[in-house]
């Protein structure tokens, strides 16, 4: 383990410790906001597996989130609290099944065509929820009784939901980190760097990509489950293309190819929104918060070519007066070229 690996591990560990300690210092509002951001972080991590790791730009991720959320609400018994133990797996299985079907078809296309086919399938899911009475149509449906497990896990309590969401985030992060180190993860990285060469070395790339797609869909459904439980309400807008676009923006803003990029992106995006929406700081102008957010995003593209995760590298390069960051990223690309 070299220095930079240690510092990354320390960063992630500190971030999770801070999140675990956060409820002790925060009020109701902070707890609510942090829960919301963590749900989005799980969602962003699921997309990072496709975009950052495998190089598949999916523009229909919201469909998996929506299917997770809708199945949680629709499968919950109306008169009593459902059990997390089967609601959550059911939601993930349904979204995974949908991802299997969508992936099997869309992976026939590449590049921008893939982006648009995934969008098309997500829009179909959107219109099914929007135009059929299945999920309450445009009005959406309410989750009357929040699920739990017996007496010891009651997700109706904000603090319990916060801790449960944090645990889910930690498990998702650890799972994806382990996946990235496995043979399967290396193969996905190889597909991102050069799919032709992977095929030439004897990998049938299609099943690998499809498996990544299904895992990503199921993880998005985890975020969808948490979303439905937190808000107690789902409507078709959850599956709209704005949501798919927003999570893609989060992943790119954070920095592609790094799990902590999705984490940082989710927090940065949400906190920037809160900042520019704050009437205490901007007064009347706060209702035009999109302007500040948009300008910040534009500045980040101009100044941070590798996203927010690249910032320490850029600072180090500046301090050493060399293009150290460039060199290390080039070495990394070369390394994944050489793997397998």
């Amino acid at each position, binding site marked *: 383990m070299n220095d930079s690996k240690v510092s990354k591990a320390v960063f992630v560990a500190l971030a999770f410790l801070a999140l675990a300690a956060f409820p002790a210092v925060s009020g109701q509002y902070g707890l609510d906001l942090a829960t919301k951001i963590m749900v989005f972080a799980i969602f962003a991590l699921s997309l990072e597996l496709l975009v950052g790791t495998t190089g598949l730009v999916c523009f229909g991720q919201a469909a998996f989130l929506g299917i997770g959320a809708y199945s949680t609400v629709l499968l919950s018994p109306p008169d009593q609290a459902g059990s997390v133990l089967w609601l959550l797996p059911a939601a993930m299985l349904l979204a995974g099944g949908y991802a299997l079907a969508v992936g099997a078809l869309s992976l026939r296309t*590449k590049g921008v*065509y893939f982006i648009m086919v995934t969008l098309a399938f997500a829009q179909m899911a959107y219109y099914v929820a*929007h135009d059929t009475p299945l999920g309450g149509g445009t009005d959406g449906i309410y989750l009357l009784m929040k699920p739990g497990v017996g007496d010891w896990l009651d997700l109706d309590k904000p603090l319990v939901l916060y801790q449960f969401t944090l645990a889910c985030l930690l498990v998702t992060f650890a799972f994806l980190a382990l996946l990235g180190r496995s043979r399967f993860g290396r193969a996905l990285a190889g597909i991102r760097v050069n799919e032709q060469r992977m095929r030439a070395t004897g990998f049938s790339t299609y099943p690998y990509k499809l498996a990544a797609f299904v895992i990503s869909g199921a993880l998005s459904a985890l975020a969808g489950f948490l979303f439905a439980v937190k808000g107690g309400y789902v409507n078709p807008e959850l599956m709209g293309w*704005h949501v798919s676009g927003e999570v893609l923006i989060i992943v790119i803003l954070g920095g592609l190819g790094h799990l902590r990029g999705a984490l940082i992106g989710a927090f940065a995006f949400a906190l920037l929104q809160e900042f520019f929406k704050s009437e205490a700081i901007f007064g009347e102008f706060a209702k035009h918060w999109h302007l500040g*957010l948009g300008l910040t995003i534009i500045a980040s593209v101009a100044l941070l*070519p590798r996203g927010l995760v690249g910032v320490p590298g850029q600072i180090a390069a500046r301090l050493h007066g060399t293009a150290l960051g460039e060199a290390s990223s080039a070495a990394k690309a070369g390394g994944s070229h050489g793997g397998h």
Partner: protein
Amino acid sequence: MDVTTFLIQCLNSLQYGLLLFLVASGLTLIFGIMGVINLAHGSFYMVGAYLAFSLAPVVGATIGGGFFATLLVGVVLAVLFGYFLEWAFFSFLYEREHLQQVLMTYGLILVFEELRSLLVGDDVHGVQPPDILNGSIALGEMMTYPVYRLFMSGVCLALALGMYFVFTRTRLGMMIRAGSTNREMVQSLGIDIKFLYRVVFAAGVAIAVLAGMVAAPVSSVYPGMGSTVLIICFVVVVIGGIGSIRGALFASLLIGFVDTFGKVLLPSAAGVLVYVLMALILLWKPDGLFKAG
């Protein structure tokens, strides 16, 4: 459905399809030639519609007014605007990954929408068509069709023909076609590719703005109109095949007809029809119908 209704729906489909073509052609050119995924392209359409609304009184006060003078001023402004945008925000993006461009143009959408909200407000506005085009013509015994919609189709058709002429018959068109096939080769032949890109971008912006201005009297002017048209235009671009003007024309008309007749015949499934069509076409032809190059 009787013959007259059918005819009217055909005219509507044609007009919608041609309008889509105007916006989508700029998108497919900018993508095909410059390799930039421009999410902000729908905003140019929105900017056009708002220009038609807010420029008319200004033009009226200064140079006597009239709908056509407003159109002309709007297009000139749009070319300057596109030229500036390419210089300020896009010229350093070509070497970067596509996704960085996506992020940049997403930021631009937010900025354009908020500037629009700051300058013009969030109300829905109507725009009056000019008096000479404000009538209707009779179709059959009962039905009439507004002249302005015919005028829109005419403008779109004229622009499509003009673009076809520029592409196939002029030196500029030759350079653009060559630039989309092989950037380095064009550069080594002594053509200023940066200038060429700036011209293509400015032209794409101007056409989208013009489309917005022409559409304003029919569609009215409302916040968020850019993003709706953007997604549909992306559908058009991929169905037609990226970079292909011919494909964009065909796909626009296809979407125009499917969407219009879908709303009449299958109102409950109208929204999804376009996407089902796109998915089917891309599964059949993964590179679109008319792949360029």
